[in-house]
């Protein structure tokens, strides 16, 4: 991969992150409850006190560049401000507590969905027009049209409420004591199961549609025709010629879609009261806890940009045609 290609991608990602920071900075100044508005609204504060307070918080300096630079500095040091709701806890700590449940849930879900979804899509595309393709395509389209939390609600009604196979909410049974690590893991697993199935099912629809069209496109390529003309068996044509080439764009699009799917997938947490970023978002929205909301935005936005960058680099590395 040429270093110019790499440098350009990294530069673009940095520009986008700069945009994100600018947006985050100015929105914070625009919204109600920002320090300047609160200060100027109180009629009992004398002009001098107001001036002193402004100087203390750095609000006497111009918004740009002084305040902006101060904001960038503190953000770079991991200081995202204090939460309104969680008794003034630093936002970074609030996010830190909630990020692991999301990473576990989403990471495992993504893994299952990539394997199953790409497999299903490849099979459906290979047997194009067959019964599996017909059913699979229809099912994928329906799943693709269903919000994650709707899938979750129905799984919960059927498997937790009606059948009672799984707990209805949380990550661990409240107030439970465990004799061993194994027991704790079991409890965790039974809580994780339904949210995990929800996220996986939601993603499988998208991924199998992607893989199906990718393999259909690849099968029309000349080199597949050549492989067939050489008299290779169908299974070898698929395994050695079609699959590796079809996987490339599919995997890249999976990486590109990461941002979109994580945004949708965190809504599944709400249904199961899974203590991750999704439930945090809802609580923060309800309490208008802006510092936390901004923290979530920054976290999601920057991970999306990085996922995109990774996808670009991956694609450039794997596909020689991009390198030129």
């Amino acid at each position, binding site marked *: 991969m040429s270093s110019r290609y790499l440098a350009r991608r990294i530069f*673009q990602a940095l520009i986008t992150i700069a945009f994100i920071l600018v947006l985050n900075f100015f929105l914070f100044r625009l919204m109600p409850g920002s320090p300047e508005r609160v200060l100027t609204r109180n009629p009992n504060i004398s002009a001098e006190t107001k001036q002193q307070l402004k100087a203390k918080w750095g609000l006497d300096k111009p918004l740009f560049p002084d305040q902006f630079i101060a904001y960038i500095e503190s953000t770079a040091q991991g200081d995202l401000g204090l939460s309104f709701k969680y008794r003034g806890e630093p936002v970074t700590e609030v996010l830190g507590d909630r990020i692991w449940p999301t990473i576990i849930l989403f990471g495992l879900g993504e893994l299952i969905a990539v394997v199953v979804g790409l497999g299903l899509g490849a099979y459906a595309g290979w047997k194009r027009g067959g019964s599996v393709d017909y059913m699979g395509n229809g099912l994928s389209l329906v799943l693709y049209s269903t919000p994650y939390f*709707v899938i979750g*609600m129905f799984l919960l009604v059927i498997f937790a*409420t009606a059948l009672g196979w799984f707990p209805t909410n949380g990550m661990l049974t409240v107030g439970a004591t465990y004799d061993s690590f194994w027991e704790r893991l079991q409890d965790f697993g039974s809580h994780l199961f339904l949210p995990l199935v929800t996220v996986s099912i939601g993603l499988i629809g998208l991924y199998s549609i992607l893989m199906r069209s990718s393999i259909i496109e690849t099968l029309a390529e000349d080199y597949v025709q050549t492989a067939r003309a050489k008299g290779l068996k169908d299974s070898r044509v698929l395994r050695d010629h079609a699959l590796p080439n079809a996987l490339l764009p599919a995997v890249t699009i999976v990486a590109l879609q990461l941002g979109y799917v994580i945004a*949708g997938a965190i809504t599944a947490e709400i249904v199961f009261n899974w203590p991750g970023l999704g439930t945090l978002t809802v609580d923060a929205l309800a309490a208008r806890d802006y510092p936390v909301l901004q923290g979530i935005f920054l976290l999601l936005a920057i991970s*999306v*940009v990085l996922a995109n960058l990774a996808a670009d680099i991956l694609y450039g590395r794997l596909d020689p045609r991009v390198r030129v």
Partner: protein
Amino acid sequence: MTTHAATGDELRTSRLQLRLRNLRSFMGRFLKRRDGVLGLAILVVFTTLAIAPQLFVGPLETAVTASGMRLEPPSAAHILGTDELGRDMLNLTVHGTRTSMAIGLLATAITVVIGAVLGIVSGFIGGATDTVLMRVSDFFLVLPTFVLALILAPVLLDVIGANAELFGMRMTLVVIVIVIGITSWAGTARIIRSQTLSLRERAFVDRARVIGSNGRQVMSRHIMPNVMSLVVANAVLTFAGAVLTETTLSFIGLGDPFQPSWGQILNAAQGAGAPGLGAWWYLAPPAVGIILVVLAFTLLGNALDDVLNPKLRVRQ
């Protein structure tokens, strides 16, 4: 003079004939797509419900005018059951159709207008304008609508206030429309731009230039009509995305309880603990509505895209 007028008339007639033939060939190709026709049929049903919900189920029930007991399962009196306030689920869902479809329609309109205008301008003018517009679109393309909406919607709501109304629409919903509109135009702009780039080099644009048309005239008279079909196909797919985004935003608590959309109904169901109480009838109607409408738009959009998009169209 008479010969001149005659040729003018002839020209007009032949142009009309050409239009008719194009339309007929489009209809012929579209009707062969059974998925597209199915999508269209579903949408006709939901659009009818959305235009006049009160004709089918009467006015929207409130906590005061609720016609049933709380969380009644489906029965002869309430064929889809009731919610936790005793409101009829059929009534709520049909009225929800209107809210969901209206938000989807308006958000799509904003998205497509911004996308088409910026796409044409960017592709036609080129140069620094193009570079700047495309960098901005990069930003919106990379960031998911949902993530941007997460901070834009509450800030806008607090600045504008939730209780005002605009054309009978509550401000909460107007904010959702605006937020979806301004965050999802980038994809449309990209598609229109690339089509404009190829149209710009065509002979009829040069001819228009030669007879003295300025840039704005060329863009509105010559480029725009030629990207219109692409805009339509794209708008239909955008609509599907807008309905899904609205549903998600309402579900996480940015909707309006006084003008409930399907997402808002599901938010209320979650708040009332309906999934844990096994009240499936509270969840199923809005969920089926969302799935059917998004599916229908996707089917119709894909079919239109295949028929209208010059790049995908198979030569016959």
